[in-house]
């Protein structure tokens, strides 16, 4: 790839006041970060992978807090739909934990990453087709905006682009900080949802 650039949500100046549009763009951001991890090596790859892990953690946590409860509550058959998604998320998290323990330049890393990528992509498409479609159908604009606000608050904790001054990659690779990040995401989302 000639020039690798991972866009940040908000680059296109869209108002992001629709939770479905926002989450779909995040799905794209996640794929872009997978591209970046695959295309780089060494410290660059470590850094890109760290950003991928953060975004995945924040994105999935936010969905668990905002999207799944809504679907479970408001959509016929929502319980089953959400169970399927949660199962996929659990599997992805396990694979993510395995990857987190691996050396990004080791021989097993890339095949495992590609496996994770496919699972994450299947999960994202399933959400788009079986959950998002219901959210748009059964929610009014104020709900969409409130949910978007919560997701955006969470997103601020997972920058897709590296920026200077951030802690070194190795320190963040351990799952500890990721688990803490998920907790913080939950708090942030709950606060945003409560405050709207």
């Amino acid at each position: 790839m000639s020039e690798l650039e991972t866009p940040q949500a908000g680059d296109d100046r869209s108002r992001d006041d629709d939770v479905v549009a926002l989450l779909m763009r995040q799905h794209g951001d996640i794929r872009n970060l997978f591209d970046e991890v695959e295309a780089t090596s060494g410290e660059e790859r470590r850094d890109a992978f760290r950003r991928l892990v953060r975004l995945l953690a924040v994105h999935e946590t936010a969905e668990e807090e905002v999207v799944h409860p809504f679907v479970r509550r408001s959509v016929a058959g929502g319980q089953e739909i959400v169970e399927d998604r949660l199962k996929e998320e659990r599997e992805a998290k396990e694979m993510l934990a395995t990857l987190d323990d691996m050396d990004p330049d080791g021989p097993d890393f890339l095949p495992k990453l590609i496996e994770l990528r496919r699972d994450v992509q299947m999960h994202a498409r399933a959400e788009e087709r079986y959950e998002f479609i219901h959210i748009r159908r059964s929610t009014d604009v104020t709900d969409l905006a409130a949910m978007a606000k919560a997701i955006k608050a969470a997103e601020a904790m997972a920058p897709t682009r590296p920026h200077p001054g951030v802690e070194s990659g190795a320190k963040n690779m351990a799952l500890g900080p990721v688990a803490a990040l998920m907790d913080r995401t939950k708090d942030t989302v709950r606060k945003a949802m409560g405050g709207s």
Partner: protein
Amino acid sequence: MTFNPLEQRGIPLDRQLRNWRELNVDPIDPDRCDPYTRCRVITMNGIEVEAILFSHQLARNTVDPEIKRQLAQTRYIEAQQQKAVNWLLPGLSSVLETTIAYEQVAVDLTAWVARMEPDPYLKQAYQFGVLEDFDHLYRYANLYEMIEHRKAESIVDNLTEVMPGRPTRYHHRDPVDNVRDPYAKDQADPLSKLHALTIMSTEQQTMNFYMNTGPTYMEPIARQLYQEIGLIEEEHVTHYESLVDPGETWWEQLVNHEYNECYLYYSFMEQESDPKVKAIWELHLNMELEHLHIACDLMRRLDGREPAEVLAPRAAQRADVRAEQGLSARTARHADGPDHARRRLRARGARAVREDAGDDPRRREPAERPGDARARRHVRA
């Protein structure tokens, strides 16, 4: 090339039926496949859809029930072929990603056909169309960035240029302006007939795809864009189908369809990088050879003519979806400058264009023409 479909025998029709397991093909990987494999899949789906629809129209215009039954038999196999081919596309792709791949086909395959087309008037018709396909690719690329936050280059893999062209509002014409002059079936190079059929079929499938998938979008900008481009695809089908000589009999058209399928499956089999997909092209080629023989028998019986008279003795140049590879796309497309196709197509008829080109149209294929340098400057400016 020595491949002559008329001299080859394929799989007997009664052994062509596949079971569910055989039809349940493994889809290609959306992120890691050769983008040109996906282009070949989309092309052959368009070709098979046309084969099926043409056969239905032919059956509706056929009185003899025995012949209707014969058409139904071959058509059922073709319907299976369409399923096997189109189901190679992965469910993991969004409609928008598949759309961008459709436009990659429209750009690269049409550019290839434009380059190989021996008739100067038909060549202009393809150059005219490819410019608009190029603009459509750009519009969908924009939409893809907005909705899915991904760059179209991640799909076309930098093999096809995605860059701003002209606003698509300039593509909407008076419908009568879309009707071109046909080739003359008895004088035309057989390759010209294959080209016209191929591009007509793929554009028709693009039109079908947009008219059916457009309303599945929730986003108003997407719904609007599919309507707009869908209407331009209607213009393209009108444009390309008018290139085909309407004087060909139904049976002659049937033979042309089957012959073209052999030609394309053979070409794609030779180029295919994915071994599993290559095996499908090979299998389908062997099926099509038999369909061609059946069609030839019908033409002999019902038209009293020898199919070899209307077909190419050999499939000359192989069709290729990889037109843009290793080229500056704009230079390849705008041989005489950016606006020439539109200007000349509108102002003058087929005869004038052919007269300009001199006696042998193929001699108009030099590597460098006076306009080329200018076109390149235009691109860089």
